[in-house]
């Protein structure tokens, strides 16, 4: 396969170079917002005569190479006035456009261009894009605008419910999502165990979720890529944005350090410390905060640098005898350099760190764990002509995993300081990705990513008989942890395992006519890190583990086919996609596996596989006072872990049962039906209304098939895994945004957002647990629901 693929690549490249004949020139430049100098992502630059064009990249840069001639150039972006310019192209030219935001008055806005709307000609498919403005309008619990909760309204994305970290894309696990904030990897996307996501909407410029057809420049996670870019800051004048909400308040300041050249942005968000206070007594604290910072500096037309940082922490403390702190810290330096008007480059040096700490005074210890990574990325975008762009680059990530360090927190503690064995790994990748227009109707993206993962030596490594850390007990028909026969000490310099993978990606769009197009894609991805999680939804204390001697990398093959249609001149758009994906080496846990502070995780995991398939449907209304969408996903997500090859033990062949007798079973994130309806109605220039309705099939769970008694405890027992489901999940939310009339013609802008979450007070089950009632002694099924109806009020301002 890879060889054929390379051959194809070469043929296509040759083909494209053979059409060079006429004299061609390049126009290029950066597009930014006039008021702030903030560069803009995804601005369309269209050449009317040639029916061709391009969009700005993540750094606002565009480049178009066209035959000599005279053209009309149209630069457009939703909510901004179009720029039309006549272009006499007889030499390479540079145009930096400044987009001017259209007047606020609604009557004047004719909403026609929309980045959320699908571009039916581009091969890129399976992308969910949301504007920050939309996210801020979507009603959410407790009124705190939330990136991830908003994404759940689009097809193919679900979560386990209100208080659950992470999200699931196309039947994938939460750890299979690559979350990038300014190109840095974020390992935990939730505050307060999933009530809020860690991204401050005020500091965000652009959000994109790739569910399939993932370009070759991304790698390392098999399910999706959520790419978030922070704003650069206003380099024209100092601006303040903020908000006061029911749970948290926000403040963001941005402004020039040197006008038009250097800008800063600093934003903070904090919840109120008394959040959980009514529940216990006064000595308890529970809060989160996060800080976003960025400095951008334009050195000259060809060079810009960016320094950005993110720091977020959650803190829980009970009576000072229990303290829990966790969060992400990210710092990065980026350098944009233009080698020529056709060759754009970005160099990123990124440090990111996820920390989880715990102090338990009543037992007398402190616990620190985390993951650190040092990431080097060099990406080049080569705009060869209007029909051909080649992106290529390198990436290297060095990881240090700290599964846990325990130390006494006071003198009389009996705890002895101990470090669970740290693990080290390096992930390197190189990619090439070609975006090519083959004919007027056919566009193709094809690329190849070559990745290599080295698990490096560590202080202690267990050795097992027959290299089997998990044993099958043929009498009890269960899996058991093996006892290591030796412990070796491979030094840091040694290489424990090496994995290499070639990951081809292809996607194509065939435009039938102006209204209809068909797209197809194939993606192969490798994932070398695994989140060890044995709970329904990931928790902050889940530990990441690298592939190595006992854990193979996950490998995905995904096929997607889509039909895209613009209806009524783009007033409506319809997207339909079908996908099938297959993941090799999805780890599964033996019954009763204990993952916490486990120094020998290989003893409780087995290698299995996963698959998911489904249909997604998205109908949007893109224009007018009423806008919104209907999303529906029908899908299936399953996994299985068959028994390993029989081993001969004492002359007896043990036929293993596998997990669930080796049969396919539903993953905890298998949601057969997922419906989301979102609408936004602009009544007048003061009032707008938003509403969303969600329906999801209840998530698979386990109900006990019986009980037994042991030492006075009532113990439920279970049949095959995930055979039953929680009740269906559904709810309706509404919100109204009010902009005071006095906003007009003054600098200080404000708005009030009134919202009601879960209007009809549906008690959705986060879980159903089975236990004995302590008072009556009778067994009960207990439904835990997180939020009933929640009204809230948020005040936002800007000056």
């Amino acid at each position, binding site marked *: 396969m890879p060889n054929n693929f390379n051959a194809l690549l070469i043929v296509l490249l040759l083909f494209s170079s053979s059409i060079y004949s006429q004299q061609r020139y390049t126009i290029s430049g950066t597009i930014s917002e006039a008021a702030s100098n903030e560069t803009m992502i995804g601005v369309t630059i269209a050449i009317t005569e040639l029916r061709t064009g391009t969009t700005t990249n993540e750094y606002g840069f565009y480049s178009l190479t066209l035959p000599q001639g005279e053209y009309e150039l149209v630069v457009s972006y939703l909510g901004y006035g179009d720029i039309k310019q006549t272009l006499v192209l007889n030499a390479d030219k540079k145009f930096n456009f400044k987009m001017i935001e259209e007047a606020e008055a609604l009557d004047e806005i004719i909403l026609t261009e929309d980045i959320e709307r699908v571009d039916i000609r581009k091969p890129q498919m399976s992308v969910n894009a949301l504007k920050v403005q939309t996210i801020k309008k979507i009603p959410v619990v407790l009124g705190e605008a939330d990136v991830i909760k908003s994404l759940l309204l689009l097809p193919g994305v679900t979560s386990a419910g209100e*208080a*659950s970290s992470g999200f699931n894309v196309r039947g994938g696990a939460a750890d299979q999502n690559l979350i990038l904030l300014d190109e840095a990897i974020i390992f935990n996307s939730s505050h307060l*165990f999933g009530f809020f996501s860690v991204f401050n909407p005020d500091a965000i410029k652009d959000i994109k979720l790739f569910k399939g057809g993932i370009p070759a420049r991304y790698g390392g996670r098999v399910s999706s890529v959520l790419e978030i870019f922070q704003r650069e800051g206003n380099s024209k004048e100092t601006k303040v944005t903020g908000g006061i909400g029911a749970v948290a308040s926000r403040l963001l300041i941005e402004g020039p350090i040197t006008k038009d050249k250097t800008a800063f942005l600093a934003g903070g968000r904090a919840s109120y410390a008394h959040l*959980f206070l009514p529940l*216990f*007594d006064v000595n308890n604290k*529970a809060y989160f905060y996060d800080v976003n910072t960025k400095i951008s500096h334009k050195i000259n037309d060809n060079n810009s640098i960016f320094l950005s940082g993110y720091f977020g922490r959650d803190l*829980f403390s009970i*009576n000072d*005898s229990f303290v*829990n702190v966790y969060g992400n810290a990210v710092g990065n330096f980026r350098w944009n350099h233009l080698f020529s008007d056709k060759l754009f480059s970005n160099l990123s040096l990124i440090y990111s760190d996820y920390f989880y700490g*715990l102090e*338990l005074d*009543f*037992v007398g210890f402190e616990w620190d764990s985390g993951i650190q990574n040092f990431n080097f990325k060099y990406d080049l975008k080569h705009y060869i002509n209007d029909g051909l762009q080649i992106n290529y680059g390198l990436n290297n990530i060095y990881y240090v995993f700290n599964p846990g360090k*325990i130390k006494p927190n006071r003198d009389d503690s*009996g*705890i*002895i300081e101990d470090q669970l064995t740290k693990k080290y790994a390096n992930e390197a990748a190189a990619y090439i990705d070609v975006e090519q227009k083959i004919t007027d109707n056919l566009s193709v993206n094809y690329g190849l990513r070559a990745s290599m993962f080295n698990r490096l030596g560590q202080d202690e490594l267990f050795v097992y008989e027959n290299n089997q850390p998990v044993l099958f007990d043929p009498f*009890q*028909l269960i899996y058991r942890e093996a006892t290591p026969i030796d412990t070796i000490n491979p030094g840091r310099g040694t290489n424990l395992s090496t994995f290499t993978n070639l990951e081809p990606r292809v996607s194509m769009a065939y435009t039938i006519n102006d209204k209809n197009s068909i797209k197809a894609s194939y993606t192969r991805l490798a994932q070398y890190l695994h989140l060890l999680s*044995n709970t*329904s*939804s990931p*928790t*902050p204390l889940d530990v990441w583990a690298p592939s190595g001697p006992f854990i193979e990398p996950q490998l995905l093959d995904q096929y997607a086919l889509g039909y895209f249609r613009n209806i009524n001149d783009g007033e409506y758009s319809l997207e339909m996609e079908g996908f099938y994906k297959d993941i090799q080496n999805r780890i599964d846990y033996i*019954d*009763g596996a*204990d993952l916490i*502070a486990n120094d020998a995780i290989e003893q409780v995991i087995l290698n299995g596989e996963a698959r998911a398939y489904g249909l997604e449907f998205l109908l949007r209304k893109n224009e007018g006072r009423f806008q919104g969408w209907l999303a529906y996903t029908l899908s299936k997500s399953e996994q299985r872990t068959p028994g390993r090859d029989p081993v001969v033990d004492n002359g007896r062949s043990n036929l293993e049962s596998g997990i669930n007798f080796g049969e396919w079973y539903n993953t905890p994130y298998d949601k057969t039906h997922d419906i989301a309806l979102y609408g936004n109605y602009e009544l007048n220039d003061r009032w707008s209304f938003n509403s969303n309705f969600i329906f999801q099939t209840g998530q698979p769970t386990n*109900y*006990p*098939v*019986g*009980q*037994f*008694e*042991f*030492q006075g*405890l*009532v*113990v*439920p*027992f*279970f049949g095959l*895994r995930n*055979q039953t489901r929680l009740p269906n999940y559904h709810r309706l939310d509404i919100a109204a945004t009010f902009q005071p009339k006095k906003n007009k013609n003054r600098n200080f802008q404000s708005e009030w957002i009134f919202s009601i979450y879960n209007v009809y007070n549906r008690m959705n089950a*986060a*879980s159903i*647990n089975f236990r004995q009632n302590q008072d009556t002694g*009778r*067994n*009960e*099924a*207990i*439904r835990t*629901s*997180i*939020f*009933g109806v929640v009204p809230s009020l948020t005040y936002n301002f800007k000056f």
Partner: protein
Amino acid sequence: MKKYYLFLIILPVALACEEAIDVELPTSDSRLVVDALIGYNENNDDPITIGQVKLTLTAPFLAEQVPVPENASVQIIDNTSGEIFELVEQEPGIFIDGFPNLEFNKSYNLRIVYNDEIYIATEELVRTGTLISVEQGDGFLFDEQIETEVKVNFSDIVNERNYYLFSFGFDNYLVTDDEFYQDSNLNFSYYYENVDPGDLISVTLLGIDKEFADYVDQTLSQSGDGGGGPFSTVPATVRGNIMNVSDPENIAFGYFSISEFDIAVLTVE
């Protein structure tokens, strides 16, 4: 370790609303359950062996009681000498009398015959650490009104990896291992709820092996100690060390364990 993390789970769930609901549950065949925890104490060279073998059957989860098997017989076999000790059924399903005097480094079989099928489990006596002190303190974790702090100090067996089971009475248990306090004395606090002055609290420390430690851990988390919520571990059937040698598919639940124990008693002030 594991227990302490449970506080994390409490926080989000505390915001939530819990309600008993009616659900229709699947059922399964009835199976034998063996609850056999036998304790041994040297008792100043006057060794005592106490404990019981309790036999029950599984029942549908919402059933109010678990049935007791009839016509079962229970034996302890000294595998070194081959000697067989027949246990006497005192009450239906409960076998208390007839235990041999246990010795270290000897293997014992528990043999049960029920419904013409033979069930066997094999164990050895496991040593325990020493309770140095059990004292009442005045701290609390969540609520001063209902909690009573008991400070426990015990010493680990030196030079080996050990697992311990604390029984605090009132069906409260704690499993711990010496990974982080090897050869040392561990001080920790345990918080009782709703005990009154004058109440007698007994703290028992049992030496157990890794398999039984895992078993009790899983039993505790499955029996609802885990608190539930989206962060609770995936439910799993807890399987012990009782083997049906006549029909391995007809599994039995429960555990046979023999442990040295130490005990301390405290009157609440």
